[in-house]
């Protein structure tokens, strides 16, 4: 599989000695959204954190563009083109929107390229240009999520990891944000999307994985998963006769 951008192979992750994720594998190609769905506590976020370098896996490999990056610190992974949008956004609240974006480009030195990317994220999220001087903490929830994604994009990633981007947001805002994710995917970005809202995730993803109790129990194209009876019943909430 030479065109795989990110390849996670048999990853075991835990907190201390308590194993949370067992033997998780997934592949992401350029221009593809791969979603991880599953109930609360199924290990989705833990897996994502391990891929982002925030937790050290106890077994398995993370390959980025054919290079083994297992256990690398997050700041090294950012430099290699992997960006992470944490759950809860983790913005720099007292700092302005433009300072948050400048921090997103912390690893980059070429000012001209950074300026180009700033113009690009402003085009994707025009509201961030309007709010440039405002402290991040004063933004609405949706604007904060946009800023978190924009901040990650400022490192010019090839692969973007998103943890629960729809959490607590209004449907209209979710639609805007996922529209941008679709556009980024179309430009060739690889995206790993951890989502509780399986319906939403499977509508925008190409491939999906279902996690239960720390294991990937089902994998397939988004269409396959959306058509699978178990997935429909448990994660999509579709009962017999509904449609």
């Amino acid at each position, binding site marked *: 599989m030479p065109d795989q951008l990110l390849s996670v192979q048999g990853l075991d992750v835990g907190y201390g000695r308590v194993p949370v994720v067992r033997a998780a594998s997934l592949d992401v190609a350029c221009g593809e959204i791969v979603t991880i769905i599953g109930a609360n506590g199924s290990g989705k976020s833990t897996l994502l954190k391990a891929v982002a370098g*925030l937790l050290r896996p106890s077994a398995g490999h993370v390959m980025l563009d054919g290079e083994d990056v297992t256990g690398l610190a*997050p*700041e090294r992974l*950012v*430099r290699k083109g992997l960006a992470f949008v944490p759950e809860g956004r983790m913005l720099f609240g*007292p700092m302005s929107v433009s300072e948050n974006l400048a*921090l997103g480009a912390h690893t980059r030195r070429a000012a001209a390229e950074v300026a180009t990317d700033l113009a690009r994220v402003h085009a994707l999220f025009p509201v961030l240009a309007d709010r440039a001087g405002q402290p991040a903490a004063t933004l609405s929830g949706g604007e904060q999520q946009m800023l978190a994604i924009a*901040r990650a994009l400022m490192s010019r990633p090839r692969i973007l990891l998103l943890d629960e981007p729809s959490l607590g947001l209004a449907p209209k805002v979710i639609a805007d944000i996922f529209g941008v994710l679709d556009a980024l995917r179309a430009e060739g970005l690889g995206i790993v999307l951890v989502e509780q809202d399986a319906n939403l995730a499977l509508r925008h993803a190409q491939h999906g994985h279902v996690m239960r109790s720390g294991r990937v129990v089902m994998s397939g194209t988004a269409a396959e998963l959306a058509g699978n009876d178990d997935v429909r019943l448990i994660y999509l909430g579709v009962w017999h006769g509904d449609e």
Partner: protein
Amino acid sequence: MSRRLVGTIAPVLAVMVVLALPLVTTDRYLFKVLTFVGLNLIVVAGLALLFGYAGQISLGHAAFFGIGAYTVGYLTADGAVPWLIATLAATVLAALVGFTLALPMLRLKGHYLGMATLGFSEIMTVLFVEARGITGGNDGLRGIPYPVLGPFKIATPGGVYLLVWITAIIVLVLAGNLVRTRPGRALRALHGAELGAQACGIDTGRLRVQVFALSAGLAGLAGALYASSVGYVSPTTFSLEFSVLLVAMIVLGGTGSIAGPVAACVGLTLLPYVDALIPGLPREAVSFLQDWEADIAGIVMILVLLFAPGGVAGLIRSMTRAGDSR
């Protein structure tokens, strides 16, 4: 716009007043008191970065001050080492000790970091007394020579005052510039959203060690200047009380600011000397202020934390914001 103008003009005016003072007065006592203010400002500049910007508390900076002071005292006592080299050595040594201490403390935050630095401070206090061969024990070191820069011996209170304040101004300007640069932005990012900082590709562990070492080095520099200004060092100077006073300056001045802690540092350092600085003050008021100095500082600190957590800087910020009527 007017706010920016004030922000540019005020420091320039302050620097001019500081540098012009020896032209208008020769009051030796005044120079000595102001020298202490300048020395504290150097430490506060480092602590403002460490505590005010990066959110890392230290209750051990008096110990770094002491390391700097004893290093200069030991090295220059019999004129063995030139003053400038001894001062640089003291700064580097304090920074190195800070670096070594910061490495194992990397995982600690908040109260735990406070406890660890407190422990370090207590260890150093004992060491200052017990390592008699170097520190002179309870008697301390005496006869430390005045600073000598090339052919110039800086042997008057006015000269020492100028040396300390010029150093303090340079340090403060550098610190003020640092927070506006790329590493300074990363430093501010560390405060509160460490996960976010990591997601931005900031090596948070390395940054924390760096800023701790930097602030320790600045405390060492201040201690070095103290030793050659005063001429002697004794272990009681570098107590926990001094560390707490330094932290109080940052809290009173306001985190995330350099100007606020500078103002608080000037105020708190001058408090014990009010009688000399304001001649008309009634005797009872003076003795009250001096007897209750620590209590006043403590009560003011509690009031600030309760009612103005942004400190002096926060109050000024909200006042100017209201004035701008935005």
